[in-house]
C-alpha cells in the first residue's frame, strides 16, 4: 500500500452520475479516499452508512470524503440509492482497478480493491494510509485520529 509522504497518484474517475472527478479538484483541502471491495457487499454497506452519519463532522473540519471501488457508475448510483447516502462514489472501472493499483490496493487474486483509507493533504501528499483486515469495518475514529495528529499548517 502507498506510503505516507509520497505524492498521491493523480486520477480522474466518473462518479455515480457520470461526472468526472479528479484528485486535483481537492487541492487546497484534505480528502479521505475510502477504497472498498464491492458495491452491495454487507461490510461496505455498514461502512458507508457509518461514514454518512459522521459526514457532518468531516464537513465541519473542511475534509472531503469519497468512496472508490471497481464497480461501474450505474452500480454506484443504485448502491448510493439503496444505502440512502450522499457520499460520492467513484468508478475505478475502466481500465479496471487502475487507481486502486496505483495506490497499491488492488488484489489480483480477487479482482477488487482492499479496504483501504488514504488521507491526502491539501498539497496532494499522502498524509496517512490504513489497510483494514478483510471483513472488518475501519472505524471513523481511525480517520479522526489521523486528522487530529496531522493538522495542516
Amino acid at each position: 500500500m502507498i506510503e505516507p509522504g509520497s505524492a498521491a497518484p493523480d486520477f480522474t474517475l466518473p462518479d455515480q452520475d457520470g461526472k468526472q472527478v479528479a484528485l486535483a479538484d481537492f487541492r487546497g483541502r484534505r480528502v479521505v479516499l475510502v477504497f472498498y471491495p464491492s458495491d452491495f457487499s454487507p461490510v461496505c454497506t455498514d461502512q458507508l452508512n457509518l461514514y454518512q452519519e459522521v459526514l457532518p463532522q468531516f464537513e465541519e473540519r473542511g475534509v472531503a470524503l469519497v468512496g472508490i471501488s471497481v464497480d461501474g457508475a450505474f452500480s454506484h448510483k443504485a448502491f448510493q440509492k439503496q444505502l440512502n447516502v450522499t457520499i460520492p462514489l467513484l468508478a475505478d472501472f475502466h481500465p479496471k482497478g487502475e487507481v486502486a493499483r496505483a495506490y497499491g490496493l488492488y488484489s489480483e487474486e480477487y479482482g477488487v480493491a482492499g479496504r483501504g483509507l488514504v488521507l491526502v493533504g491539501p498539497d496532494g501528499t499522502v498524509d496517512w494510509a490504513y489497510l483494514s483486515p478483510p471483513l472488518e469495518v475501519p472505524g471513523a475514529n481511525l480517520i479522526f485520529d489521523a486528522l487530529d495528529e496531522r493538522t495542516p499548517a
Partner: protein
Amino acid sequence: MVVEYADLECPYCAKAHLILKALPVTRVFRHFPVTSKHPRARVLAAAAEAAGLQGRFWEMHDSLLEDQGHQDDPHLWQRAEALGLDLERFERERRSAGVAERVERDFRSGVRAGVTTTPTQFLAGEAHPGVPGASFRAALRSGP
C-alpha cells in the same frame, strides 16, 4: 456493567435488548443512530431522552425496542400517554436542541470508541459488536 451502543430502530438491537434483559447485568445505554439506514433513529432516540427527562427513559426504551412496528409520531404520543408522561412537555422536549445534543454526544462517544455497527456492547472496556452471543456470555461470566 455493560455499556450498549444501539439504534432504537435497528432490529438487531431489539434482539440484543431481549437477550440483555434476561441477564443479571447493569445496563448503560448510549445512542448510536444510523439515519441513512434507519430514518427514524434520531427521532426515536430523542423520544427516549425526552421520556427520560420525566423519569421514564427505560420504559420508553423498552417500549420502542419491543414493538418496532409502530414508530410514527402518533405512536410516540400513545406510548408517552401510556407511560403517564406530560404530553405537551414530552412533545416540546423531544424536539429540543438539548435532547438532540445529548443524542449526538452519545453518537460521537461511540465513534470515538470505535463503534462501527449496532448493537455494540462494551464489557470492561472491551468491544463486543453484534447481537450478544456465546463469547459475550463467557466474558460476562468471567468479568469482575
